[in-house]
């Protein structure tokens, strides 16, 4: 019976320190079929596919490839030899090399001791022609190609390696409409050639173009599998998000005060398009949406970390000029960024140095000498807000756990008086207890009449902690909902409302 499947995974378990990433998951895909693998961020889709492609090893469970049981662990080379290839969301190409050089990377053909470029170019061209792209010259530098074409080269490379099972992780996320259509055409072509395709995407609206069957996962568990045509879109969404919302989100009710911040028609980069919203005193404004919907970029533009192309920011009725984080901080707008290691902390420096870094102007003399007593007071103020457990404030931040590091990120900004506090994914990767502490901080700020913005990809969190929610999709605000009345389904509908998909 397993013979009919290209891949069959049964009872897969995988635990990371502290997290059960996969809990008895099953998954299968037939040759000549497109199987959509759906689920929210963190549902375990990537982990499952990383096990299939040999990046992670499974704790328990059986994997059959074309009916043959895989004994022992897979590694990436073994998976490749079995015909499993993965096309990542971020393409992995040597941008400065030619198409042919990329396709034969690590397996270069040699003739008389030197590279056989002629033959490699011919083979590359033939492979691209199979995908209906005979117009591409294999001697083109990859970096000169548009993203859609680069993706095609990567698919051709997989085929060159005899891939029978192709995993595509968010293949449409960085493509234009025309490119998406071409990609669909290629996927159909591959399906007709008998390739088994695993298609991971958050763009539910596009699935009906190509998908045959779906597998839905949630919180590391297998939820549902079946023919795509047997489901309605609402059913799929409710299977994806259908968790019970418990009361792990304390939300204090505060009367909304006067308007603090007005953001008007902000454009920035290619991910922030015409964003306008208001923020009131004593309000927590949630920003929901899929990863890369443009929420972080919007916050960075407001905070002055990235350049705005156009748009106005009005604080307390006065238009303010923000060209750098310095300007924003001076005006009382602060941002606790998304990635604490990359952007939030100087991990080699001590807790003290990190907390006081944005507040040095408040503790130093005219000549810039830091007043130790004042600095101690400031650190204490930051500490009081959060119960940071640590041996001493001189300890390097890198020695702290993730939860405590996140508290340092937050403390930095609580030590000073601000008008608007922006939290970008404030609870990513930290445990429940620490999460609740951070929610309490948000409540406390709200009671002080501070305007709080929270960007979060976890729907239960953004619904549980905010008062009002703005939903982003593809750089625009596509919906505004009342956090107390909305449903996850409603938010997901807005979050996948691609303007260009209509």
């Amino acid at each position, binding site marked *: 019976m397993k013979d009919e499947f290209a891949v069959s995974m049964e009872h897969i378990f995988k635990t990371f320190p502290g997290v059960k990433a996969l809990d008895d998951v099953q998954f299968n895909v037939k040759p000549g079929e497109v199987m959509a693998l759906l689920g929210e961020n963190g549902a375990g889709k990537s982990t499952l596919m990383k096990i299939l492609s040999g990046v992670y090893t499974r704790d328990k469970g059986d994997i059959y490839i074309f009916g043959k049981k895989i004994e022992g662990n897979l590694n990436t080379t073994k998976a490749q030899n079995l015909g499993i290839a993965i096309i990542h969301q971020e393409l992995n190409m040597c941008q400065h090399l030619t198409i042919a050089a990329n396709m034969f990377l690590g397996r270069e053909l040699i003739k008389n001791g030197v590279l056989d470029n002629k033959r490699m170019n011919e083979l590359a061209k033939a492979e691209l022609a199979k995908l209906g792209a005979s117009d591409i010259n294999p001697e083109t530098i990859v970096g000169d190609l548009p993203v859609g074409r680069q993706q095609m080269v990567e698919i051709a490379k997989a085929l060159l390696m005899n891939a029978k099972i192709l995993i595509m992780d968010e293949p449409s996320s960085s493509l234009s409409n025309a490119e998406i259509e071409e990609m669909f055409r290629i996927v159909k072509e591959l399906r007709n050639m008998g390739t088994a395709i695993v298609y991971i995407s958050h763009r539910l609206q596009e699935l009906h173009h190509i998908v045959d069957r779906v597998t839905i996962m949630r919180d590391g568990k297998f939820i549902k599998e079946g023919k795509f045509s047997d489901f309605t879109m609402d059913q799929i969404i409710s299977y994806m998000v259908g968790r019970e919302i418990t009361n792990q989100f304390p939300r204090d009710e505060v009367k909304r005060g006067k308007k603090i911040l007005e953001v008007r028609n902000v454009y920035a980069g290619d991910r922030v398009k015409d964003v306008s919203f208001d923020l009131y005193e004593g309000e927590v404004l949630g920003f929901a949406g899929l990863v890369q919907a443009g929420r972080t970029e919007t916050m960075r533009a407001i905070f002055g*970390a990235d350049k705005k192309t156009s748009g106005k920011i009005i604080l307390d009725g006065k238009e303010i000029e923000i060209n750098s*984080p310095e300007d924003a901080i001076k005006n009382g707008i602060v*941002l606790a960024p998304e990635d604490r290691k990359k952007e939030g902390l*100087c991990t080699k420096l001590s807790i003290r140095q990190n907390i006081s*870094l944005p507040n040095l102007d408040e503790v130093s003399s005219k000549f810039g*000498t*830091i007043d130790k007593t004042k600095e101690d007071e400031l650190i204490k103020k930051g500490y009081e807000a959060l119960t940071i457990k640590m041996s001493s404030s*001189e*300890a390097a931040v890198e020695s702290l756990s993730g939860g405590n590091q996140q508290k340092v990120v937050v403390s930095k900004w609580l030590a000073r008086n601000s008008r608007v506090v922006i939290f970008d994914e404030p609870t990513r990767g930290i445990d429940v207890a620490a999460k609740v502490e951070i929610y309490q901080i948000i409540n406390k700020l709200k009671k002080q009449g501070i305007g709080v913005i929270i960007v979060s990809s976890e729907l239960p969190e953004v619904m549980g902690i905010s008062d009002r929610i703005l939903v982003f999709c593809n750089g625009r605000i596509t919906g505004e909902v009342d956090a107390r009345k909305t449903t996850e389904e409603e938010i997901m509908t807005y979050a996948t409302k691609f303007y260009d998909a209509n």
Partner: protein
Amino acid sequence: MSIPGMASALTAFIGVILLMIIFGFMNPNFLSKTNLMSLARSICPYLLVGIGQGIVCITGNIDLSIGSVLGMSAMISATLICNGVNPIVAIIIDIIACLIVGVVNGVLVGKCKLPPFIGTLGTMTICRGVAQLVNNNYNTGDIGTAPLAKAVRDIFYYGKIGVIYYGVIVALIVWFIFNYIMNYTKTGRHIYAIGSNVNAAHLSGVNVFKTTTTAYLISAFTSCIAGLITMAAAGMGSMQAGMSYEMYGVAAAVIGGISTLGGSGLLIGVIPGASVWAILQNGLTLANVPVAMRNIIIGIIVVACVLLDIMRRLDVKVKKENKKE
């Protein structure tokens, strides 16, 4: 010690003591009063360029123009003095000229985002050209013995109080100033912050351009003073002055525990770092080791020092990670 860099600085201090004992055994003259006095004086240029390069390294950058700025400083000051300019005015003009190079480096690296290696490679070549240009491609003559010119020689090199040369005092004053700035001021904190994580610093409101430029200004200033010392010692300006000193600066900083990757290290480490370098030169000379062998030995010892430090750090890191699990 929990302060990052302190352990490395202490290791370097111990290294200095060990080297002194070894060379003391090899040649009793090494520990004589006269030799120790002149040894302390010969450390000064290394210490100064080590301070500058060390601070630039802490920001996560590098300054290749140090040696050329040193040469430029020696040539500008000597040429001006030889041409009858009041030595005080000459030194002021010299300092301004060097600081301009610091600003240029800051703009290239901090504003135009040139890789520091390339940006300062450019200014390195330009400054060497300027050093050659100021006196029409000749070394200068003697700066003479007029009272002020003599004062310059004394202050930067020949004069002494008791057993300590003035030059040593000048270098230590410079060290004290910048050590204070690095440890007790906003500027210093910002320098560490951009070296540790430039994104986080930027998002914390640190002006990255200003901070980068400050570091290059400091480096240009210390190179300038080192150039004045070299000029005072020779009593003239040499176009070749300061060749390779940017690398001696790297050596002094790295031996003293400053990471070239930025964000960590203490200025206190530059003192033993520069001393190791000078002691090796001086000690091997007294031990009658031929120049070629001297260079090879010094090279090996420097690499070994840094390698040991890296191994020690990796070991600490591995242990820490094991503890976490």
